[in-house]
């Protein structure tokens, strides 16, 4: 097993010899002065290789004497591990013993070797370059995509912020007590207005629709015109009665005409459509429902 590295050295050397011989023919095809230098390294190398080959053949002979051994599943691991230990220690000791042989430091040899190494290096570097370039491209594309996404998200965020602030301004802080107070104020205003209206109505009615004079009634008593002796109520009071009846008993808003109603005023109300007679009973009237 420890002859492995022998083989590796010999292979490399043989390969280089072949390359070298080709290259040297390219390098100096016509120079005659360098002939000796040209052939010498080549001959040297070939001699070295031949020696190595002979060594190898000897080793090969020794190896062929070694017996064979096959494995079964049960003993495989253990025997293999033991063998590995032996071989690896042998290889290690061989590496430690052996000084690396340098091929003759000849200019042509070095140049050829150098060229080869550099070409290999260049090839590998080109591969690396193309890989990295394509990786770069991909990364650029990814970056662009991500930036676009970020922009869109920022736009969305901005518009959402604007919406948010707008809505915030619109929303008035709703508190129960405020609503309550508002309603109270409204009711109060409405009530005030109602009072005002009633007062104005009363004043208006007093001014323009007064009750007839009492004295006149007493005078006409003798002339046999039936005048009601009951206390007359003002038009205001009449309207009040009608209004209350309308709202208290909506399904029967009729009021019986009593003697306290002054007939001319009843006529006035009826003729102007403010009051209506009962369809079956002429003695009953109701207020027109202006609100319905």
């Amino acid at each position: 097993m420890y002859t492995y590295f022998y083989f590796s050295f010999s292979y490399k050397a043989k390969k280089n010899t072949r390359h070298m011989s080709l290259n040297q023919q390219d390098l100096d095809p016509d120079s005659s002065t360098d002939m000796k230098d040209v052939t010498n390294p080549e001959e040297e190398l070939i001699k070295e290789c031949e020696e190595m080959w002979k060594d190898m053949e000897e080793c090969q002979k020794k190896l062929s004497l070694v017996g064979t051994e096959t494995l079964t599943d049960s003993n495989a691991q253990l025997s293999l591990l033991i063998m590995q230990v032996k071989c690896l220690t042998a290889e290690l000791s061989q590496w430690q013993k052996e000084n690396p042989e340098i091929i003759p430091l000849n200019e042509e040899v070095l140049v050829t070797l150098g060229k080869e190494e550099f070409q290999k290096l260049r090839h590998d570097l080109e591969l690396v370059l193309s890989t990295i370039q394509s990786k770069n491209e991909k990364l650029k594309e990814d970056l662009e995509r991500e930036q676009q996404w970020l922009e869109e998200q920022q736009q969305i965020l901005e518009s959402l912020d604007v919406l948010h602030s707008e809505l915030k301004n619109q929303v008035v802080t709703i508190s129960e007590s405020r609503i309550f107070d508002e309603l109270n104020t409204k009711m109060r205003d409405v009530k005030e207005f109602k009072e005002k209206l009633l007062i104005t109505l009363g004043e208006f009615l007093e001014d323009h629709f007064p009750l007839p004079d009492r004295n006149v009634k007493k005078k006409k008593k003798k002339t046999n015109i039936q005048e009601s002796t009951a206390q007359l109520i003002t038009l205001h009071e009449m309207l009040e009665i009608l209004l209350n009846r309308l709202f208290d008993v909506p399904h029967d808003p009729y009021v019986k005409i009593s003697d306290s109603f002054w007939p001319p005023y009843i006529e006035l109300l009826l003729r102007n459509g403010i009051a209506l007679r009962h369809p079956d009973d002429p003695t009953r009237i109701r207020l027109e429902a202006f609100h319905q």
Partner: protein
Amino acid sequence: MSVLRPLDKQPGLNTATILLVGTEDALLQQLADSMLKEDCASELRVHLARSLPLPSSANRPRIDLIVFVVNLHSKYSLRNVEESLHHVDATFFLGKAAFLATGAGRESHCSVHRNTIVKLAHTYRSPLFFCDLEIEDFRATMAQRLVRVLQICAGHVPGVSALNLPSLLRSSETPAPEDL
């Protein structure tokens, strides 16, 4: 009944020979073609065999690397490989042998469990590769890897010998040494 020995013959100049053992002829042929397409400094030779022992012929060059190809879809291929293992000299397993399991991609068709082949590779202390040889891209990548390993086994890579391979190619899946 000849047992395959790693160093029975002299090596050829700048040549490296790989032996693919497996029952899947078509797949082996395709893998061989992919390997020969790889550009490699050494001359490659690929031999195919259904099973070992090989018919004895003096023309066969020295084998540098044996790859046992197991198809996880058929138990027969596993059994075939297991029987062939007995015709290989023990020194091959010091890095010059490897296992290749194909067909792991289609779980439903697998009749051989992954762990079986993992255990087998572990028993023989050899590296195990998983590759679906039917898919061309994977096959090409695997061919590249095999060519590199073959170069090391043939000694064409200075500084690395086949003895280093089992420890270099140890994957995280193989059970820890405590499981011995």
